[in-house]
């Protein structure tokens, strides 16, 4: 029964296959639908939840992107803008140069510099870059980014998510569509995740065969107890008091001379004449260990 009762009720874990998708801020209706039907999870939470190929109690994952890093080749002489090869931050944001550290005016007219494009402030395809002039406070250059689209295909993202977003960095490489051609290796900063809840998640279930074994074993125990108590003519329980009572009623003359001896001493002197069996009474203390019976010690050994 010990084997069965713990398995009569068992847990069923659901490992749900899932897809990783990215939120497109231009699709207002789609965003509204996702926000209302999913569970918002902070960055660390969804990364730890989606750390395996199959996740418990959750379906598809929608990830927001709140930052984009890439390198721009900027020719300030004629204001012709092109996007250059991206630079992967080695450890998150540290390798991304903040606006304030970009020297102005540039020593050359053409520089390669990493830029953060704040996703929240830009619309896909209609984005813009804003450059501050350090020498002329208040002067800003707004650089339009036309025909710029990020596209994150949903079918080829590796799983689990921990592969693409580690605990140390919230940045990941991705693909950017620019002027109808793919650019590899741009870097995106991940934000909150939106997890699709499952209707058939993990649960507790009964195992009928094991439950039957437990019920039958318990029924047998009850029947055995009932028959024992109802029809057995033997004393149900023999206690130390019963033993003393019995010996007081029917004294055993052969043990008369052992009155102050313990078990070990009795065994040692049983072959001696009565006059040599006696031992002087000694006041002493013993530990409980020293007074355990052989059977108790044996039971401990087996346990």
């Amino acid at each position, binding site marked *: 029964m010990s084997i069965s009762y713990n398995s009569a009720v068992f847990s069923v874990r659901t490992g749900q296959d899932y897809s990783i998708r990215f939120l497109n801020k231009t699709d207002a209706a789609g965003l509204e639908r996702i926000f209302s039907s999913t569970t918002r999870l902070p960055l660390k939470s969804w990364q730890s939840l989606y750390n395996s190929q199959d996740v418990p109690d959750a379906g598809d994952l929608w990830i927001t992107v709140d930052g984009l890093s890439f390198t721009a080749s900027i020719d300030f002489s004629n204001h012709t803008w092109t996007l250059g090869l991206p630079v992967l931050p080695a450890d998150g944001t540290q390798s991304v140069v903040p606006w304030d550290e970009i020297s102005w005016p540039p020593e050359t007219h053409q520089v390669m510099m990493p830029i953060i494009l704040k996703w929240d402030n830009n619309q896909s395809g209609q984005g813009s870059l804003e450059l501050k002039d350090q020498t002329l406070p208040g002067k800003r250059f707004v650089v339009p980014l036309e025909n710029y689209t990020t596209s994150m295909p949903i079918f080829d993202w590796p799983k689990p998510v921990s592969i693409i977003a580690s605990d140390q960095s919230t940045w990941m490489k991705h693909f950017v569509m620019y002027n109808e051609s793919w650019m590899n290796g741009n870097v995106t900063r991940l934000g909150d995740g939106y997890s699709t809840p499952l209707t058939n998640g993990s649960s507790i279930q009964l195992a009928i065969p094991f439950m039957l074994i437990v019920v039958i074993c318990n029924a047998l125990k009850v029947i055995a107890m009932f028959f024992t108590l109802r029809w057995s003519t033997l004393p149900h329980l023999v206690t130390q008091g019963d033993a003393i009572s019995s010996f007081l009623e029917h004294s055993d003359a052969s043990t008369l001379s052992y009155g102050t001896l313990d078990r070990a001493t*009795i065994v040692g002197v049983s072959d001696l004449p009565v006059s040599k069996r006696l031992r002087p009474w000694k006041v002493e203390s013993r530990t409980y260990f020293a007074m355990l019976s052989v059977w108790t010690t044996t039971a401990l050994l087996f346990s």
Partner: protein
Amino acid sequence: MLTNHIIITKHRFLAGILVLLILDNKDGPGSFSDWAWGSASRKNLPIARQSFDAKGILFNTLLANFPQVLLSLAYFALNRLCTSMCFIREWNDHGLERKALRVASPIAQQRRAHFLQLPYRWSIPLTGMSGVLHWLLSQSTFLVRLDMRDADGNIKEDESRSTCGYSSLSLLVFALSFLGILAVVYGMQIRSLQIYVPPAEHCSLVISAACHPPPGDINPQFKPVRWGVVRNELGRATKHCSFTSENISKPKEGVMYL
């Protein structure tokens, strides 16, 4: 000495469990951040069968629940130990004060035996402790069914399986609780007891030797009795010690008694 050795061996065994838990959690799926209570843990025993058929489920059931059988045996031993301690105490107290005997079917002034041989102040904590340990163990290793579902929510039969899950956190709490209980029992066992009646150690020979009341003591078993030096009615040179319902005197150190 043997019992001491057994207890020490158990401590080493449980210390081994703790070391295993720590080594197990160096990295990977068993990292410390992966510690979850009970069946919330997603760890599986590597020796468990990853199959969904009856043989695999039975094997995993045995694997998950065999420790329960061992714990039951350990509880029997612990119960036996505590019963023996109560026996020792009750027996010895008869040399200290006059008490009616505790018997299964009391007559006259006799007292009814404790339910299941143990006073409630022992049996209730023991039963509670047993229940808690069994529950902790059930949270430590357990049968798990893994239903793998595709993106549409349909069960993938070929990938679904049963296995034996375990929780490091539950196992750690169980091991610490078990160690704590062992420490308490060990502490109780090494306490000293002043001997007032020769220890019986469940030996009927000793019990019989302590039950030779003087001839004039009629039916002492139905009255409160005490062990000590009884009235020397037969005028023997050597006095005698026994349970009796009559007045007794304490045995004197260095004096021999029958």
